[in-house]
């Protein structure tokens, strides 16, 4: 029976009762309780079911190492699976449900796995079976396995998380992780140097275990020392303390993640739920303490079997007595503290089972003095199975488990010794060394993780360094503070020896199995990894089958792969493995420690980036107008561009067709602001552009424009656009929307890293200007009307501004630059105005254009218009594997220039291959639209049995002007095969027959644009 004590409980406030529910039952706790302590206070020993065997499981630990007590917490938009009861602070209205059982926690059908099949479900059993009949894996076995695995249930598929998250970048000289006495001392020492110090502690209280374990520091009772020290640190300007903030991971170059849980303990509080601290610390001190190891005996997973240290935590911290009749099993002196705590809290310590023949030291004497029976050299043979502890069988440690004595008990406190928490030390490459005396791995200070400067950047402090007694812990912590401070170039005040109480302890005895030669029946009931149901026999089987590397054993048995990452099981597991292999533990080594120390929410990792700030959304100055006027948006990089403007009663396709016709017949307006506009200036600008473009740009006359192509060094077409020469040493290069940033970056790269002696400057002016394409037979009319009505002298007549020319001036009162260029084959002007007037200019055009039939058009119409004219589009006709020659763009490849990017590449054998597919137009025989991406089939199959192909569609549209499908494609020997009909099988099963034609479908003579 687990009960709440009338006294004790330093962390709870009995004046503040709290109601919460567990599996629908209303229970009470106090402010300061964890869910685990509150459950225990209500005698709720059974809290969950194990992963594989669905064994009844209770709370074993009191901190984040807890493997069993995982619950589903909250509901709806605040539901979260797999929350640890031991790290969950209770609050009014908390709802928790246990996991991994059906139909209920008490009666779980899955338990049959444990009762009947457990011996069949040994390590790796599924690799050996479920192979026949073959389809059964997908349809029977796998679904079954998946449903019985998996722990908590998934959050609702449709609900958005109710909470928000954020990040915080923080920089300090010394970061201390862990706010136990060691962390506090290290912080105090480091802070004395004036260094900027951040101290983080995952729990909501300071001091770690010491106030529970007792002792004095500098003459004060541990708790008083903690209170005093915290106050001292809080008063210092150079120190920041954060509780509820876990050191989650240590990454390269001193980058550390802090995971601060802001509202988990009070979900109704406004503000972000979690904050991910992205800390860059010159030195990090990990003062993360030590974790107690369970003992490996049969039935060590029965609810009521608990870590000894945790049991006294429950008594001291939360005033909860987990059992009335308790057996304490140990291989070291520390567990006697639990015996004392139990006794003083009123429990009956029915036996202390000490595996050591010699027994314990001073603390043992004290226990014996209280009349408690201590059995030396003995072990727990077995705890009787069930939903809670009822009987404990005791036997000699050096035996197979025979000669048992059975005693009645309702709880067992076990201690297998303590292991330093070395996770953070190890994340970034810190190495460990084996301490045979204490039987644990501890950090090897000579092989610390190293940072950007090649020097160690992590120091450990306190029990996470190895020493377990208070005196050495404090000395080690102070030293860590001094070392870290030195490493940041400062001098700490050396406080000298820190006086503490001293209790000498007898040496511990490594005990990896209880009893030492436990028979197979017992080993099959002896748990190593509670959550993943890995037993001693599993590890032994893995070794027997040749999975000898500790990494193989881990993966074969799943030891240490559960949500606790083996905090309790790893060392015990590898000791068993070492024993099975006849090897020493350090030879076997550990598995790799990886972040996070303890699972962290995905929400926190994503941070603020959700909803409208999931990603930047780039908007042109006319964005709002488009949105108000029916824009069907298309994402283009981070931009959003109107695909079409849908009017009432129209489908998107109808809108596109309307726009296509209207632009050719009347007037279309396109927001072309996203096109890249790079200004290139300098005495060597012409020479530079000649290198970047395949054609000649240096000879372009001022006032003129030229269409240019760019290739990568690898020869592939990468961008295109119209280049205008502005003055003697200035050019303006238009790029594609996607190309703007990237071509700009590329220009800078060549200028800075290859031709750094060339005098050229580049500025990306893309966003300075809003650009509108005014397209169609009425293009000139609308602009002239603007000039006439609103003033503006720019002469836009054919004579003053010829095709492929540009001019600056005022149009309708706006400062403008007009380019007479055309991507549609129509009379067309592209007009740039300052972005701050883009919307006004656009609106002016729309209004003035009314009488000329002006309509805005979107990207799809743009595509169709250019396809009707056989103009290529980067990203359609090109895909990163296409060279200009494939597209019949030889005319744009300068013969005069000795060099330009891509030129050398074009002479490689495959690029000069006459069999390359070449651009042609394609017309279906029946006028249908060729399917996008279709391939043309050739004769036969290739060496791998694949159908041979001879071409593919690169763009295909319905042309409303021609009232038929038009397409372009790349076809083997295409230009030589005009008029031939080739077959394109569609995904719909139909074969589309298309004639190879010239790619210019509309206005072949190009008369329309030249008016």
């Amino acid at each position, binding site marked *: 029976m687990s009960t709440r004590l009338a006294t004790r409980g330093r962390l709870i406030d009995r004046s503040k009762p709290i109601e919460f529910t567990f599996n629908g039952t209303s229970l009470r706790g106090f402010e300061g309780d964890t869910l685990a302590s509150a459950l225990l206070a209500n005698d709720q020993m059974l809290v969950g079911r194990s992963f594989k065997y669905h064994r009844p499981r209770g709370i074993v630990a009191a901190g984040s190492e807890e493997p069993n007590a995982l619950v589903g917490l909250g509901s709806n938009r605040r539901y979260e699976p797999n929350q640890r009861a031991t790290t969950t602070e209770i609050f009014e209205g908390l709802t928790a449900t246990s996991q991994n059982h059906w139909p209920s926690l008490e009666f779980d059908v899955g338990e049959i796995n444990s009762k009947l099949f457990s011996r069949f479900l040994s390590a790796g059993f599924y690799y050996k079976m479920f192979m026949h009949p073959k389809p059964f894996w997908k349809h029977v076995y796998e679904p079954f396995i998946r449903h019985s695995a998996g722990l908590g249930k998934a959050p609702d598929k449709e609900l958005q998380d109710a909470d928000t998250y954020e990040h*915080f970048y923080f920089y300090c000289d010394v970061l201390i992780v862990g706010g136990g006495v060691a962390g506090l001392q290290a912080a105090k020492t480091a802070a004395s140097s004036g260094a900027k110090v951040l101290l983080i502690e995952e729990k909501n209280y300071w001091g770690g275990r010491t106030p529970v374990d007792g002792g004095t520091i500098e003459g004060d009772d541990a708790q008083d020392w903690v209170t005093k020290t915290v106050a001292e640190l809080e008063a210092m300007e150079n120190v920041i303390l954060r509780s509820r903030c876990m050191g989650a991971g240590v990454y390269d170059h001193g980058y550390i993640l802090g995971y601060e849980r802001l509202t988990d303990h009070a979900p109704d*509080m406004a503000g*972000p739920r979690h904050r991910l601290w992205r800390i860059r610390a010159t030195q990090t001190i990990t003062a993360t303490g030590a974790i107690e190891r369970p003992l490996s005996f049969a039935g060590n997973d029965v609810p009521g079997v608990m870590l000894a240290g945790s049991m006294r935590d429950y008594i001291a911290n939360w005033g909860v007595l987990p059992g009335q009749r308790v057996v304490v099993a140990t291989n070291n002196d520390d567990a006697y503290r639990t015996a004392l705590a139990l006794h003083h809290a009123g429990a009956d310590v029915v036996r202390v089972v000490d595996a050591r023949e010699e027994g314990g030291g001073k603390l043992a004497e004290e226990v014996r003095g209280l009349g408690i029976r201590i059995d030396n050299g003995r072990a727990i043979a077995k705890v009787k199975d069930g939903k809670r502890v009822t009987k404990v069988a005791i036997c000699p440690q050096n035996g197979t488990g025979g000669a048992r004595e059975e005693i009645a008990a309702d709880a067992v406190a076990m201690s297998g010794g303590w292991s330093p928490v070395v996770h953070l030390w190890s994340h970034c490459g810190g190495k460990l060394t084996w301490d045979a005396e204490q039987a644990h791995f501890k950090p090897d200070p000579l092989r610390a993780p190293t940072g950007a400067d090649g020097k160690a950047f992590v120091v450990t402090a306190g029990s996470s360094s190895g020493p377990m007694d208070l005196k050495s812990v404090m000395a080690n912590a102070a030293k860590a503070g001094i070392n870290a401070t030195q490493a940041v170039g400062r001098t700490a005040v050396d406080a000298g020896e820190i006086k503490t109480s001293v209790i000498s302890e007898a040496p511990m005895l490594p005990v990896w199995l209880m009893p030492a030669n436990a028979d197979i029946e017992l080993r099959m009931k002896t748990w190593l990894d509670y959550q993943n149901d890995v037993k001693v026999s599993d590890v032994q089987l893995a070794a027997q089958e040749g999975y000898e590397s500790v990494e193989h054993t881990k993966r074969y048995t799943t030891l240490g792969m559960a949500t606790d990452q083996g905090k309790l099981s790893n060392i015990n597991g590898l000791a068993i493995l070492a024993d099975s292999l006849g090897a020493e533990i350090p030879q076997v080594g550990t598995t790799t420690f990886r972040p996070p120390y303890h699972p962290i929410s995905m929400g926190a990792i994503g941070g603020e980036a959700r909803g409208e700030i999931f990603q930047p959304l780039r908007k042109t100055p006319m964005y709002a107008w488009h949105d108000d006027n029916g824009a069907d948006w298309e994402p283009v990089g981070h931009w959003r561009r109107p695909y079409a403007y849908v009017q009432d009663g129209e489908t998107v396709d109808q809108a596109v067709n309307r726009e296509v016709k209207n632009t050719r017949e009347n007037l279309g307006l396109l927001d072309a602001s996203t096109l890249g506009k790079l200004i290139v200036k300098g005495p060597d600008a012409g020479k530079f552009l000649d290198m970047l473009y395949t054609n000649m740009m240096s000879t372009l006359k001022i006032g003129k424009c030229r269409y240019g192509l760019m290739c990568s060094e690898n020869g592939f077409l990468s961008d295109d656009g119209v280049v205008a020469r502005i003055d003697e040493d200035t050019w303006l290069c238009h790029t594609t929307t996607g190309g703007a940033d990237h071509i700009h970056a590329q220009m800078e790269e060549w200028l800075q890293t290859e031709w750094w002696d060339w005098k050229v400057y580049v*500025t990306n002016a893309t966003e300075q*200007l809003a650009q509108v394409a005014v397209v169609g037979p009425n293009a000139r009319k609308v602009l002239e009307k603007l000039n006439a009505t609103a003033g503006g002298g720019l002469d836009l007549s054919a004579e003053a501004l010829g095709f492929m020319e540009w001019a600056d001036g005022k149009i309708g009162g706006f400062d403008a630059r007009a380019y007479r260029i055309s991507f549609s084959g129509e009379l067309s002007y592209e007009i740039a105005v300052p972005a701050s007037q883009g919307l006004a200019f656009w609106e002016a055009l729309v209004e003035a254009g009314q009488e000329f039939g002006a309509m805005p058009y979107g990207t799809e119409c743009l595509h169709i218009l250019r396809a009707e004219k056989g103009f290529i589009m980067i990203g359609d006709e090109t895909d990163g594997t296409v060279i200009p020659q494939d597209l019949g763009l030889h005319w744009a490849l300068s013969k005069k220039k000795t060099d330009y990017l891509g030129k050398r590449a074009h002479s490689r054998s495959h690029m000069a291959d006459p069999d390359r597919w070449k651009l042609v137009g394609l017309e279906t025989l029946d006028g249908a639209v060729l399917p996008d991406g279709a391939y043309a089939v050739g004769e036969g199959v290739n060496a791998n049995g694949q159908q041979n192909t001879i071409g593919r569609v690169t763009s295909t549209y319905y042309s409303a002007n021609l009232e038929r499908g038009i397409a372009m494609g790349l076809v083997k020997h295409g230009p030589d095969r005009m008029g031939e009909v080739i077959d394109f099988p569609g995904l719909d099963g139909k074969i589309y027959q298309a004639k190879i034609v010239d790619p210019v479908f509309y206005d072949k003579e190009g008369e329309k644009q030249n008016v």
Partner: protein
Amino acid sequence: MSDPVSALNGKTYSGSATVTENGLCGMIVLRGTFTDTVFQQAVRDIVGCDVPDIRKLVRSEIGSAAWMSPDELLLLVDYSQTEAKLSALRLALAGTHFMAENVSDARACFTVTGAAGREVLAKIAPVDLSPVVFKSGDFRRTRFAQIAAAFWLDEADTFHIICFRSVAEYMFNLLKTSAHPNAGVGVY
């Protein structure tokens, strides 16, 4: 010609700090050789201050100059005078190798005021914003969450932020989220 409008037309939000889109600001990108005395004089003539030190912004009555890179300054002037100053600058530098372009409309400007300003920025920019490290007159180019930005701190502890115009709304929402009244960190 109609009145020029900034990306968000002066939108503002008050939380733990006040975030304001600042309207249009005259900005000239000036590239050239900093050590050239002609260049230095031109800068002095246009904005009334010397070429700033690395990662600094200097101010005068008539304008400011910010260090963008070893060969690039950002000159801040009155919006209405940008074109005139640009012409003057081009004239002054004629014959040297330089580039001067008006980028006023390519950018959006924000201020963040209030005691929580440092924290608001520290949630989204990987920069040490502690008062001993980042001081008034410091100018820094970095990223704000997923976009490039530049910012500086003035004597009145106001942060000034510049980003591209197209992402003004993203920037505003980012700062707004960061300045949520219940999301104070409490370290600065």
